[in-house]
């Protein structure tokens, strides 16, 4: 049996053009009608059949799983890629977002979808999946600008074959999604539509927008009433066809009653080269990660630089920074903790320290996980060190704090760069979590990637994508007993 979930939309709208160029405040628009939806097939939660997976291990008991089919039948296009999986969980509701690329069955302009964002919601408490339906997104639908047929989550896309980015987070126990649509080809802003790169925050009965001259990819995290999003991307400049220098920005997320939230951006890092608008600086930022607690907030990101003539054409660095959890303002300069062939980092807070974990390899050796600790108030991080774990080829780490302990998941490479199995473990520290890890992805799945955690109290969700003949997302619901 499968459950029909709705993740895509056909919208009919009209909205007055927004005129706020650099405002930091979300604004709401007049309600409009939503016209129809599209289904996605999702298998219901069921007991995990593999005894080895369900066996209690390291205090993390994963009892049930669900599979979300992200394939041609469910998405309506030939899906060629599923990326940027992310999950956020409140007490009674959780959301998964992901991006797909695909082909519509023709070859001309507009026949290809690039980084199109979708979402699925479910109940982590009773393990009953629910669709991201029109009622959940009703407020967003009512406030979206007019346009033709639209697929996926609401985003400020414009033009032909546009891309979009999404990041889920939780504020006051409510799962929300930050989206930003980008410009496709011939992205002319029509009357009643939002310009590309307008940021939306959507959720059940909640929709806000903010215009930003920044275009990026995001990670977001909430803590109580405070939330931060970190974006890696480029400054936008008004001249068409030109983009500004790369930068990293932190956005403050708030819910107020009545909901009027705001985004306040603080520049954390800007490229020191390529200040000339439109110049190919060779520098880019990506891999944003953020964590926030009552007292602290930490961000991590990757800086990539293309070096002409160098043996390795791309040199990347992992950078960390402390930011004010209230304002998002940087509390000091970003510090580099790794350089070379490094993967995107994941960052989390434990007490007064931030930890970052990433994959790194030297030469042709396998990727290994490395981590670093940085105590708040200290001028510099400690020295980075390897994670000694049960596997050798490890990459794409994700880490979270669960009841004071550390949940660590990663991909164990199996042959090629796109082959992998998901391992995870729970421990008092990173080393212990790694040493106690077990394989979580089924033994008959050889292309599992991109694990992500969501934590709500002692309830832990672990999701990843699987890329067999067809793509799907697998979700494990776990408990970390007191």
């Amino acid at each position, binding site marked *: 049996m499968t459950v029909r979930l709705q993740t895509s939309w056909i919208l009919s709208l009209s909205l007055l053009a927004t005129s706020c160029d650099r405002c930091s405040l979300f604004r709401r628009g007049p309600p409009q009608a939503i016209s129809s939806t599209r289904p996605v097939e999702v298998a219901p939660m069921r007991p995990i059949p593999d005894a080895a997976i369900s066996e209690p291990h390291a205090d993390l008991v994963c009892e049930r799983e669900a599979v979300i089919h992200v394939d041609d039948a469910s998405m309506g296009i030939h899906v060629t890629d599923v990326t940027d999986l992310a999950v956020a969980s409140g007490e009674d509701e959780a959301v998964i977002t992901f991006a797909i690329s695909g082909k519509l069955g*023709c070859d001309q*302009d507009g*026949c290809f979808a690039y980084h199109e964002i979708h979402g699925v919601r479910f109940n982590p408490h009773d393990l009953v999946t629910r669709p991201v339906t029109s009622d959940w997104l009703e407020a967003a639908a009512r406030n979206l600008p007019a346009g033709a047929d639209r697929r996926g989550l609401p985003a400020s896309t414009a*033009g032909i074959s546009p891309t979009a980015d999404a990041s889920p987070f939780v504020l006051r126990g409510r799962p929300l999604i930050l989206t930003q649509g980008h410009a496709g080809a011939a992205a*002319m802003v029509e009357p009643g539509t939002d310009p590309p790169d307008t940021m939306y925050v959507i959720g059940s009965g909640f929709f806000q927008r903010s215009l930003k001259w920044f275009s990026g990819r995001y990670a977001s995290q909430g803590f109580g009433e405070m939330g931060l999003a970190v974006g890696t991307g480029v400054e936008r400049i008004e001249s068409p*066809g030109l983009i500004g220098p790369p930068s990293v920005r932190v956005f403050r997320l708030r819910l107020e009653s009545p909901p009027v939230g705001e985004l306040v951006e603080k520049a954390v890092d800007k490229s020191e080269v390529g200040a000339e608008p439109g110049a190919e600086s060779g520098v880019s930022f990506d891999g944003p990660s953020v964590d926030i607690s009552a007292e602290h907030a930490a961000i991590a990101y990757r800086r990539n630089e293309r070096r002409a003539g160098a043996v390795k054409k791309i040199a990347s660095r992992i950078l960390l920074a402390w930011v004010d959890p209230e304002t998002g303002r940087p509390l000091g300069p970003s510090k580099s903790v790794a350089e070379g062939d490094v993967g995107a980092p994941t960052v989390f807070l434990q007490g007064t320290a931030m930890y970052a974990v990433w994959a790194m390899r030297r030469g042709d050796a396998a990727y290994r996980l490395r981590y670093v600790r940085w105590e708040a108030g200290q001028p510099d991080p400690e020295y980075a060190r390897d994670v000694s774990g049960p596997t050798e080829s490890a990459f794409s780490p994700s880490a979270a704090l669960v009841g004071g302990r550390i949940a660590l998941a990663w991909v164990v490479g199996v042959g090629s760069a796109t082959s992998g199995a998901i391992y995870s473990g729970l421990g008092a520290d990173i080393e212990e979590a790694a040493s106690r890890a077990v394989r979580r992805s089924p033994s008959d799945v050889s292309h599992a990637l991109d694990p992500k955690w969501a934590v709500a109290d002692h309830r832990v969700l672990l999701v990843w994508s699987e890329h067999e003949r067809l793509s799907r997302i697998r979700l494990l619901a776990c408990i970390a007993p007191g």
Partner: protein
Amino acid sequence: MVNKVAPNTKANVVTAKPALTLRFKVHTRSGRALKGATIEADVGGDKKKVTSDAQGFARLPLTASDLDAVGGSISVDIKMFHFAPDPGPGGKIEPGPLSISPSVSKDGFDPDEQNVIKDKSGTYYDCVLIDGGLVLSVATPGTVTKRLTDDEVQRELMQRHLDGFVTLDARSEFVFKHDESMGEFDACDPDKCKIVNPSVSNWVNLTSGKVGNVTFYALLNFGVSGKKKGDKIPGQHFLRDTIKWGNMPLRQVDQRSVVGIARLCDELNSNHDIVAIYTQGINGDSSRKDCHGYGRAIDFGGVSTNDPDPDARTMPIRMGVDFIVYLHWGLVDMWDYKSVAANSDNSTWTRQKARDDGTDYSKDPDGNTTPLHYRLDPPPFQDDVPDLDPPDDDLSTKLKSVAAHFAAAGPIFKAIFDFASSEYTDTNSKLGPLDGGAQEDSTAIDDQSGHYILHPDYGRPNAQGAKNGRQAHINHLHFQVGPTNYSAARTK
């Protein structure tokens, strides 16, 4: 470096202290600094030689006695292996030194003289050399852009750069490695003078949006008036339309696309007096992995026979001057295919009431039941202008311009399409010669099925939930060289 300053004794150091230092900056037409160029000056019969640094600057110290020796002007040769003085656009490259004789006084160069530039450090002489490898440039007009070999693409691009038709920026201009076994100024041999930059797989930047006599502008928005009560003729509302435009430097464009763009500009300027092209997108983008991201596609929004008013970014449409795809093609109602199918006499044809009913003409490839016909043929809005009461000569003239405007618009847009279907990818996305030198038949603008060139009369409508057909291209022609999709985004 030979520097015939007096021997470095303590006494002579004092007497040989430079009275001034002459600065020379050596660079290419694109502004690329040339390191290692030799600047050789004749100082009263003595030769003084310095070389340029990484910024292209060379500094020639002159003592007071040197100044006396040169007698008010100094003869200088600036040279570099296999380079030539820049002959200017269209000039002949003759490898050898650039010989100059600028005036010199105790204050340096005369800032009023040609090629003397003043900066915060004083004056310097601006020396422009050109790589002798550019003699290898040649156009291949007998081969359409999509069928050029990579070598032909680069040689034609070189030719356009040499002619000044386009100007590649410093990062994109052609750089050669010259076999050092050749004489200093021997004519370049293609086997011994090899292109080292740009690789044919790289995109290039132009220094501006100007290509020949045509300038590219960004088409940012439209102001569509719509009909009003009291209009004297059906097309009067076109007199009230506006467009918003912006500057559009050409950056990150595929080299083959630059060649195509240059040919397009040649064609439109020569045959239709076009001097401005409005586009919704022509530059590459390293975040996209499609033909637009690769800098291989143009979203062609319109043309003008006069440049837009630089003081009016929101510009009223000038009838007979500004031909905008959206306003003067896309917003015209399509022909009702039933009326077209019923009678070949176009005077009996009627237009669709909803402008475009979404018919998929590709389902009727022969056009037997749903014939697709170019909506600007015959031209719309050819209504007679009535006598105005009271008479208003100015308005009458404007109203008459509507018919003439649409009579001209149809052939212009069709010429752009015909050019694109010939030079750009139409039915076969392969680039370079086809096997056995096979030729393709060009597609008609109202072809029932539609291929890679999309426009307001494209045969297929948008698929559900997609922007891949006629409605998505109501405001521009899209044309490209090569396939639409790539496995990865282009980064160089």
